[in-house]
Structure formats: structure tokens, C-alpha cells
């Protein structure tokens, strides 16, 4: 199995609160791993640590054998690590299409010097990106709203845009933070299908989700987190059946 994302001995504490306590976790390429646990277990903090938003106290993160530990957020993304956000964080002053167009892994348009001295190259890259973005929008059923502002579409569509934007980033590893919260119907099925396709194309996927049906249907395995620690790992059915974990999840 190819290496995918590998996290070793990741530790982080904010004062007295431990959000990551020696986390060891591997997400092989082509697999979907579900992170399960009650609120405050450290799932989103784990994503923040892996994506470089928060600096860990100790531990390492590698992706496809490449060490990401000392890198900044944008450098990690350029090496193939993408994520979505629980609260979406879409670019509100851009259209749906433009939200995708700023998201390719390499975007020449972010460099003023490239723009001033290599306008032709930027234009060619822009054209290729536009084709790819259009294809992704079609795949995610968003083609009809491509030119609408992201603020004027439904919540389910906004969730899809978040996923589509991450796809545009062409990741090797994708961290999805509650992609299903508040989503139903068509959008639900689309996200499910997209995540499955991603895994089949060899991308390592990690999903934080409270929707048990989604986790059960989609994930190859589950990881149960509690108080910043990985308590158990196994098939989702096993984890759900474990009375000890159920008790921790629902509290007593």
C-alpha cells in the first residue's frame, strides 16, 4: 500500500487543554478513513494541525513520503494536502466558478511579477484551469450556477462548492470537515459519489462526520477520538458496536 498521509506522535496543548495527545495515524492512498468522536474530541484540531493552521508542540506529518512538518499552510497545500471547512469559508465576493479558479495547486495569477512580465503564460494557465473547473462543476452538478455569487445559492450547493474547490486543488490527501452537516437529497448523494471516486483514483481521504450512515456507507475504516487521543481503530461497524465507545460518544 502506498504511504499516503502519515502522522506520528502529534502533540498539542493549549494551556491545560490537550487537543492532540501523541496521535499516530496513517491514511493510505486510496482509502477513506472516518474520524469519529464527540464534540471537543480534537477532530477539527487534528485537521488544523495537519494542514499547518496550528503549529504542533511535537510530532511529524508526512505526505507520500515527503515531510511536511516544518512547512507553512500554503506550502503543504502545494504538496498535495487539501482540506474543507466545517463553516465552509467560501470566498463570498467571488462567483462559484471564480471560487474554483483561485484554487488550482499552482496559480500563476497570485504573482504580480508573473502577471506583469508573463501575461501570456498566465493566460494559457488560466484557460487550462477554466476547462478543469468547468469539468469539476459539471461533475458536482454546479454547472448551472457557475456564474452566480456563492452567497446567493442554497446551503447544500455551498457545501458542494467547498468540496469542488478542494477538488480543483488536485489533492493527494483530502481532509473533509463535516461535509454532510446540514446536507440532504441530491447534494448528499453527489458528495458521497465524489468522495468514493476520489478514493478510487488513489487519493487518501479523511472525513470528520457525525452522520453515522454516511461514515458507515463510505469509510473503509473508522478512527475513534476522545480527548485528543486515538482510542480505537477498526471497521466502522466494529466501532459502532463497541459499548465503551458509544458511552463516550453520547456521554453518561
Amino acid at each position, binding site marked *: 500500500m502506498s504511504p499516503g498521509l502519515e502522522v506520528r506522535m502529534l502533540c498539542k496543548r493549549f494551556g491545560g487543554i490537550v487537543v492532540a495527545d501523541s496521535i499516530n495515524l496513517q491514511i493510505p492512498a486510496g482509502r477513506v478513513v472516518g474520524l469519529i468522536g464527540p464534540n471537543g474530541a480534537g477532530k477539527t484540531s487534528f485537521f488544523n494541525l495537519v*494542514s499547518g*493552521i496550528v503549529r504542533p508542540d511535537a510530532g511529524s506529518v508526512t505526505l507520500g513520503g515527503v515531510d511536511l512538518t516544518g512547512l*507553512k*499552510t*500554503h506550502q503543504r*497545500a*502545494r504538496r498535495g494536502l*487539501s*482540506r474543507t*471547512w466545517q463553516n465552509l*469559508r*467560501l*470566498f*463570498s*465576493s*467571488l*462567483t462559484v*466558478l*471564480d*471560487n474554483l*479558479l*483561485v*484554487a488550482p*495547486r*499552482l*496559480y*500563476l*495569477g*497570485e*504573482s*504580480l511579477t508573473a*502577471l506583469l512580465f508573463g501575461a501570456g503564460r*498566465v493566460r494559457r494557465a*488560466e484557460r487550462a484551469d*477554466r476547462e478543469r473547473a468547468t469539468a469539476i462543476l459539471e461533475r458536482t452538478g454546479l454547472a448551472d450556477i*457557475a*456564474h452566480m*455569487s456563492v*452567497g446567493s445559492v442554497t446551503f447544500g450547493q455551498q457545501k458542494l462548492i467547498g468540496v469542488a*474547490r478542494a477538488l480543483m*486543488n488536485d489533492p493527494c490527501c483530502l481532509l473533509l470537515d463535516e461535509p454532510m452537516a446540514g446536507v440532504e437529497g441530491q447534494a448528499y448523494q453527489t458528495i458521497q459519489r465524489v468522495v468514493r471516486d476520489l478514493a478510487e483514483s488513489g487519493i487518501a481521504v479523511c472525513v470528520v462526520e457525525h452522520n453515522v450512515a454516511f461514515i458507515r456507507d463510505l469509510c473503509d475504516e473508522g478512527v475513534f477520538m476522545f480527548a485528543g487521543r486515538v482510542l480505537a481503530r477498526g471497521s466502522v461497524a466494529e466501532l459502532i458496536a463497541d459499548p465503551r465507545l458509544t458511552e463516550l460518544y453520547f456521554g453518561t
Partner: protein
Amino acid sequence: MEYVYALIMLMALYVILATSFDFVIGYGGLISIAHPVFYAIGAYTSALLALDFGLPIPLAIPAGAVVALLASVAVALPSLRISGDYLLIASIGFQLGLLEAIKNMAWTGGSGGLTNIPGVSAQSGGHGPYVVVTVLLAIGTVLLLRWITGSSYGRAISALRDDDMAFSALGRNGMMMKVGIFALGSGLAGLAGGLYAHYFRFLAPGQFGIMQSAALLTMVVVGGMRSIWGPVLGAVVLEALPQAITFLNLPPSLLGPLQGILFTGLVLVFMFARPQGLIGGGDVWRGRAVREVRDVARP
């Protein structure tokens, strides 16, 4: 004629200052009101290079712009590294500190001002061409910023302003872009400074203080933030307005306060009654690229 020249000159300079300030604060979302300090750096650098080192004016002016640009990078790098909010504090500190330094040094002319700056003289008929060049540079600035904000860089600026964390999680170097936006805007202010120095041939630190910041902010807010033509209109209107008041033949003791009230009053009125300014920038970024896509999509 000299009066008309000076008025056109000031309008053109304020077009450069207001549009570049809008680029920083409106488009870039970088909260700083210290724009006049980079205007001052451009003006003093260019003036001193010509005065003390005999550098020809066409070389001194761009040199002033470059020094203003470099100074802005030196201010932006450390403060943006901590957090965006520190830029406001650091830049005001830099503005007040540098002006204080200028006041207290002999070679900058001190608080009395720098005089005898080499420049074009009205007698030799050099004012006309100089004004034309300045107006052309102002038009060039507007077109450059219009081109940049409508390009793929403009799209990235909008995304960065909306959410810089999501922006960097997509592989974008937001920090680098913020420094770039600040540097370009400040460099253009430096250019305006050099152009000012060799025309009016007198500089004093008092010209570049907080009052100047307030005037520029008024132009941008009244004209319309995040639009290209808004600050242009704001600059022209607000430069013309005080001149118009002087025709009312009021005593000078009334004139000064009246202009101050006019500026602050306008900001208040616009903030409440028309926050988008005379020419609103629109909530959604529409670059050239979008139009092209639409053309392609049409059968």
C-alpha cells in the same frame, strides 16, 4: 494660467494617491491610513537626490518611488507576520515617527520645510509639459490598477480579502500577496510625491500628516471603495471643492475650519447615507476572465 495648472496638477496627483490608496485599503483590505508617509518618502527622496546629488529630475522621481516601495515592504513584513491588525498601528507609528524625524533633521529642512528644490520653472514655460506628463501618469496609474484588479491577480486579491485562511489552505501565499499589494500601492504614492516635489518645489512635514490621511480616506470613501473610478471622482471633486469655497470670499479665519467640517461631514454623510460611495464597487468580483468564459459558453 498658473492657478489652473496647479489645480490640474493637484487633481492628477490626488487621483494617483486615492486610487493607489483604494488598491491597498479597498481591494487589498489592508487596513492602513499611513499612505501619505510614502507620498512623503517619494517627495523627500526625489527632492534631496536632485538637490544634494544633482540627480536629473526624470531619474530622481522614479528613485523616490522605489525608496517608498522598499520602505513599505520594511513596514509590512514584520507587522503582517504578526497579524493584519498590526499593520494599522505599525504604519501610523511609522508615519508619525518619520515625520517627527524629518522635522528634527537639518538636511531635510526641518519643520520649516525644504526649499529650493530643483524643478521646472514657470518662466521657462516648463509647467505645461510637466502637468501633461503628470496627467498621463495619473491615467496610467488608473489603467494599471484597473488591469490588475480585473486580472487573475485581482481575483486572488478578492479571495484573500474574503478569507485569508482558506486562501492559504489552497496553496496561495497570502502573506506575499499582502506585501505585494502594499508595496505597489505605496510605490505609486511615492511616485506622486516625486512629481509633487519638483513642481511645487517646497516640502514640509506638516503636509503629510494625519490630516492628509483623512483627506485621502475621504476621497476613497466618498468616491467609492473597491471601484476604480470612485476614487478618481472622489479626488477630483474633493480637490475642486475647497477651491470652489475660496471663491466665496469668506475671511481666512472661517475658510480653514469650513474645509475641515466639509471633509469630515462628507465622510459621515456618505458612511450613513451611501456607504458604497458615489460609484459603488459592487459586491461580486467580475474580472475580464469571467466575461471571456461567458463568451465561450454561449453557443
